[in-house]
């Protein structure tokens, strides 16, 4: 404390000190999807924003802080977008953030190998008039493709500082930071390019701009008048919606509408297309002027893999093979490791019980042994062997860039349930954990498609449910039965998806998706990602598992078990044909799905169950309710009503199918 006071005094007595306190900067990372913003964000902040080689990972803006040369810098990682129009929520959110929050510097991250398309976004940023740094990322990858960009030339063409990074290795990050500070302090002066359009457009933009700045001074305080003018000419619904509320808004809107109509008559195309074409032709001009393609690149290994994995015929067996290999590895490998753990922990538990019972009363031994120890051991032996390998393989798929290929191949199939190929990505993620998968549904374009994808995603057996299916059915009944459950689940997803597609009003949307090039996955990134996902499991699941186990012991000791059992017995044993005690784990399973198996094992020796009971139990666990975390994610994305509807549908469905399965399998 004294030390802190002393340093504060020293700090205040230093004339520089007071100024230091104000040395706070806010910078935002903006740019196209999949250019490496999140990698740069992680390099800057040391945080672990999930990165991967597929467009649309960063669905929420992430924030972090870093200290550099006496500055406290807050960094915001905006979601990747291709434009600043109103196509998606992300685009509106991003441009409103830039215009209203006015960060000190915008770092426009650009994929150096795709300068032209990326510059389209840059030009739109320039229209919003913020202080910009253009950061060419992945310059190593561009060089490999034979592409070289003259950074100085680009800088003078755009009138903004240009930096270069290879974010994966961290090269250039310090220079980027120094430039950020130089721009923020005004040390580096620059004059951004004013994007001008062809004569016909320009004339109209300027007329509307004049009108906007005289008639609507309030909105010009937030957005540049010229930007408003361009957006009105583009028939931007969000901007016109904002303006309509103002006093002179209608008048301006009508006038802009008239001019947009004139423009369309001259060009014979919709005005947004005319303006987009103009922006693109400028982007092309600049890109051509600064880029030299040195050697036409040879067909690389990555391109060969690409051609093979998206081949119109071979692509499908390869996709099936990859998925089969993943499951085989987890099924067989997980079983093997899990059995090993079981054996070791079995010995450990009985040994500790022996030791403890010498100096503790029986109830305490029970509490420690059954509650804490067996809970932890079950958590480790049941869950980790399946969860860790799954996350590693998923990270590999994500980082290599295979997921968009799979999405491409599955497009046709996904249309059958009213979605397009992109929905396959959250579906795949769902096999890991439903929570990020539900949030990942934001890569779908419309609210209707997001809801539809989330609805099918929660039916995908996540790693925790895999634990139950494999740990119970796979181990005691056989892998063929476990596989049968998975196939049944896919059929169910398809059938329900199709029904939901027919029931939900609205038109299906077609696929438009960037195909990122294949990249060699970095081992470090895969390990970091696997760890951060596993960590969630360890830190969130284990306390719940222990609490659940303790609750079971307590319920048993107080005699409450009978109470619950009697109440639920018509449903659990009458309808589902399970031992009545199985109702308890199913209740606790709402917290975490793997709890159902762990608690079941504590209540009933698993071997005493019949094969039919095991299958029914696993089937019910697989469908009956999204876990609490998933329900919370659904609520956040779609609101309470839809989250509860999905939950109720799943519960009803699980009980219905469980009863049917019991009757059919018992024959």
């Amino acid at each position, binding site marked *: 404390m004294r030390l802190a006071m002393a340093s504060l005094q020293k700090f205040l007595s230093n004339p520089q000190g007071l100024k230091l306190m104000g040395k706070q900067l806010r910078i935002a990372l903006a740019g196209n999807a999949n250019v490496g913003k999140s990698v740069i964000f992680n390099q800057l902040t040391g945080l672990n924003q999930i990165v991967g080689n597929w467009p649309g990972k960063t669905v929420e803006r992430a924030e972090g802080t870093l200290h550099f040369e006496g500055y406290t810098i807050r960094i915001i990682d905006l979601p990747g977008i291709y434009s600043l129009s109103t196509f998606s929520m992300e685009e509106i959110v991003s441009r409103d953030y830039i215009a209203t929050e006015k960060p000190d510097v915008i770092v426009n991250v650009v994929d150096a190998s795709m300068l032209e398309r990326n510059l389209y976004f840059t030009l739109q940023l320039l229209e919003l008039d913020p202080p910009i740094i253009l950061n060419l990322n992945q310059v190593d990858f561009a060089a490999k493709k034979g592409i070289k960009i003259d950074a100085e030339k680009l800088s003078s063409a755009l009138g903004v500082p240009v930096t270069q990074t290879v974010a994966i290795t961290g090269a250039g990050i310090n220079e980027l930071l120094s430039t950020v500070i130089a721009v923020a302090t005004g040390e580096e002066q620059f004059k951004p390019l004013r994007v001008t359009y062809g004569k016909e457009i320009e004339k109209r933009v300027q007329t509307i701009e004049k009108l906007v700045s005289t008639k609507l001074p309030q909105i010009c305080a937030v957005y540049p008048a010229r930007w408003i003018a361009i957006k009105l000419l583009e028939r931007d619904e969000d901007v016109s919606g904002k303006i309509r509320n103002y006093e002179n808004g209608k008048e301006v809107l009508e006038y802009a509408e008239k001019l947009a109509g004139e423009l369309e008559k001259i060009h014979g195309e919709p005005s947004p297309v005319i303006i987009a074409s103009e922006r693109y032709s400028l982007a092309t001009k600049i890109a051509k002027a600064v880029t030299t393609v040195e050697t036409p690149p040879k067909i690389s290994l990555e391109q060969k893999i690409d051609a093979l994995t998206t081949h*119109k015929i071979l692509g499908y067996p390869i996709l099936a093979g990859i998925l089969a290999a993943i499951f085989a590895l987890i099924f067989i490998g997980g079983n093997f490791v899990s059995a090993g753990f079981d054996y070791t922990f079995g010995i450990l538990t009985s040994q500790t019980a022996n030791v403890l019972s010498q100096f503790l009363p029986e109830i305490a031994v029970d509490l420690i042994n059954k509650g804490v120890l067996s809970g932890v051991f079950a958590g480790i032996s049941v869950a980790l062997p399946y969860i860790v390998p799954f996350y590693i393989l998923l990270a590999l798929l994500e980082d290599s860039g295979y997921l968009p290929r799979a999405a*491409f191949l599955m497009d046709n199939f996904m249309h059958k349930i009213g979605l397009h190929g992109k929905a396959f990505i959250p579906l795949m993620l769902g096999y890991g954990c439903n929570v990020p998968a539900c949030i990942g549904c934001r890569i779908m374009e419309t609210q209707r498609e997001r809801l539809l994808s989330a609805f099918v995603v929660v039916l995908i057996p996540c790693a925790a449910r895999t634990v139950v299916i494999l740990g119970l059915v796979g181990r005691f009944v056989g892998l063929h039965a476990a596989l049968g459950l998975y196939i049944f689940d896919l059929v169910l997803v398809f059938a329900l998806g199709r029904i939901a597609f027919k029931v939900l009003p609205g038109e299906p949307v077609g696929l438009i998706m960037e195909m990122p090039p294949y990249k060699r996955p970095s081992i470090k990134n895969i390990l970091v990602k696997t760890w951060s996902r596993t960590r969630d499991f360890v830190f969130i699941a284990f306390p719940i598992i222990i609490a659940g186990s303790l609750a079971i012991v307590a319920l048993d000791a107080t005699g409450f078990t009978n109470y619950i059992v009697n109440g639920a017995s018509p449903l659990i044993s009458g309808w589902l044909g399970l031992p009545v005690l199985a109702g308890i784990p199913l209740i606790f399973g709402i917290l975490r799905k793997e709890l159902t198996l762990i608690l079941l094992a504590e209540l009933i020796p698993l071997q005493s169950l019949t094969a039919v009971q095991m299958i029914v139990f696993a089937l019910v666990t697989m469908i009956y309710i999204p876990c609490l975390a998933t329900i919370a994610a659904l609520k956040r994305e779609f609101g309470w009503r839809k989250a509860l509807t999905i939950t109720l549908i799943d519960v009803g469905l699980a009980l219905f199918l469980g009863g049917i399965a019991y009757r059919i399998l018992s024959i």
Partner: protein
Amino acid sequence: MRFRHRRAVAKPQVATDSKEMVSLTCLEEGKSGVIAYTHGGCGLVRRLAEMGLTPGVEVKLLRKCPFRGPLEIEVRGTALALGYGVASKVFVKPSRTEANG
């Protein structure tokens, strides 16, 4: 739904007024064309323009999947996947002088 798909596919033949223009779905793999126009809802046309599919730009069809599956094209140095329905709304003038690629 089936009906809706059919209609979307049938449209191109009606809309192609010039013989030279074909829908992107009719282009052969490996062949290029210059975009003449895109049609469809305002949102789709705008979206395609923003992804670089503006009139006058050259596109190359990299591959197409069978059974009205999606297409992969190269435009402005990037690879894009388009669903069949989307691609059928993009009209191109096939390039005659084919660069080997």
